[in-house]
Structures are given as structure tokens and as C-alpha cells.
């Protein structure tokens, strides 16, 4: 265990030095590059901006004491899914598409609906903020991966709480692989 975390003097202060700076930096990077994702003409630029968003969100996971989820985010999302996206962007004719109209004909309606959703979120956050507890429970960071593994696989001979769901997830991935292969084949 990290000796710094065990030290009550360090642990007592809930806000370590420069944490607000890192939070606002990562949050700003995530939102600004998210804006780039939906406004860029060239899909490759969108994909690169999305990678920046994913990495910033991974940083936010680290700030939330979730190092395993941050690792999964970087390896599986930024490393796996985004490479898949970039491959497909290279396969389809992106030159012609980037010269065409970028937004569909009913975009004002879509924007209006999204603004309504934003208003809903804002009112939910403003109304519900008093219900949120102020406390942030200090999760043990160094045993995070171990505890997630215990929940997924079980420990000490017992089946974990999520073992069945985990197996179903592997089945889902198998079906997705088969579906992707079958749909992209020219002749079955």
C-alpha cells in the first residue's frame, strides 16, 4: 500500500494540492475536444479529437481513484476502438464526403432537442444538488484492480457477484465479432 495514502495527515485533507487545476484542465480538454469531434469536416480530425477526449476522461477516472477503469479506457477505447474507427475511415471514401454538406436538413430541430435535453440536465443538477452528499469516500487506490477482479471473477473459491454477467459479456463480444465478419464479407 502506498504509504502516502495511509498517512492520516495527508488523507485528512480531501483536496490535495492542485487538484482543482487538474480537474478543470482535464474537463476543459474533454469538452473542447468533444466540440471538435462534432464540428470537424474531416472525419480523421474528429477521430483524433475523440482520442483527446478519451484520454482526458481517463485522467478524470484517475482523479476519481479508479485506476483500472482508466487503464481499460486507454487500452480498450483509445487503443482498440479508435484504431477500428480509423481503419474504417480509411476504407470509405472520406475525400468526397468531406466536400459535401456536413449537417442534415433538419439540424435546427436536432439542435433544439439537444438544448431541451441540456435544460433538463441543468434543472436536474440545480434541483438535485442539495441531495448529493458532500463527502467523497476515499477508495483504496492500490487494491482497486484486485477488488474489481474479486467482483468479476470471485475470490477464495466463491463465484463473484458479476461472474455471470462477465460471461454474458464475452458471449456478446463473440456475437459482435461474428456479426461484423459476416456483414463485411462480400459473399457468405
Amino acid at each position, binding site marked *: 500500500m502506498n504509504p502516502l495514502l495511509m498517512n492520516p495527515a495527508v488523507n485528512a485533507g480531501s483536496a490535495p494540492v492542485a487538484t482543482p487545476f487538474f480537474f478543470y484542465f482535464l474537463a476543459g480538454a474533454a469538452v473542447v475536444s468533444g*466540440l471538435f469531434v462534432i464540428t470537424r469536416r474531416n472525419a480523421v480530425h474528429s477521430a483524433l479529437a475523440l482520442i483527446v477526449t478519451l484520454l482526458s476522461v481517463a485522467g478524470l477516472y484517475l482523479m476519481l481513484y479508479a485506476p483500472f477503469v482508466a487503464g481499460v479506457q486507454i487500452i480498450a477505447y483509445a487503443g482498440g476502438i479508435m484504431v477500428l474507427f480509423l481503419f474504417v475511415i480509411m476504407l470509405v471514401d472520406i475525400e468526397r464526403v468531406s466536400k459535401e454538406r456536413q449537417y442534415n436538413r433538419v439540424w435546427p430541430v436536432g439542435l433544439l432537442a439537444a438544448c431541451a435535453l441540456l435544460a433538463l440536465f441543468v434543472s436536474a443538477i440545480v434541483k438535485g444538488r442539495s441531495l448529493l452528499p458532500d463527502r467523497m469516500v476515499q477508495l483504496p487506490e492500490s487494491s482497486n484492480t484486485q477488488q474489481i477482479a474479486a467482483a468479476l471473477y470471485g475470490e477464495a473459491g466463491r463465484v463473484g457477484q458479476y461472474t455471470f454477467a462477465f460471461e454474458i459479456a464475452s458471449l456478446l463480444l463473440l456475437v459482435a465479432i461474428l456479426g461484423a465478419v459476416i456483414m463485411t464479407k462480400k459473399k457468405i
Partner: protein
Amino acid sequence: MVPIATLHYLVVAAALFVLGVIGVLTRRNVVIILMSIELILNAVNLNLVAFSRMWGNLHGQVFAIFIVVDAAAEAAVGLGILIAFFRNKETINVDEIDLLKW
């Protein structure tokens, strides 16, 4: 300065979610629509992990990992459909994908 709490993460996640919804509803390029769906899923994951921190248990983090698995499956199938469609119709604009419209 206000200490960073769950509320801050909820605000960031709401912003990312709305950006993703705007992308899905206004863009024509299917690849960018799929990327906007990834933005939405990320916003949900951020909420789950923030609540996991707030309550001090790991259920939210485990659920976030399942959502990453889901996102991988969704991206694989969606991009497979996209390639199959591009091979037949030579377009990846959603408003030209209207085979089922009559």
C-alpha cells in the same frame, strides 16, 4: 476555491452527453455519428465512476467496464454495417440511407 465534488463531474458528463446528442442529431456522416455515440457512452461512464467514488463501492466501476465492452461490440457491428452499406450504395451519409423508407 470550491473543492471538487461529485457535482463537478456530473456537470462535465452532462456537457459531454449533450455534445454527443448534438452530433447524433445534426451530422450526416455516419462515422461521426458513431463517434458521437462513443461520446455519450463516455459521459455515462464518467457519471458511474463519479457515483462509485461518492458511495465508496466498486459497482459503478464494474458497470463502467461492462459499458466499455458494449461500446466495443457496438462499434464493431456499426462499422461492419457501414462497410457493407458503403460497398452497395457508395455513400456514408445518413439521409441517403433510406432503403426502408417508402
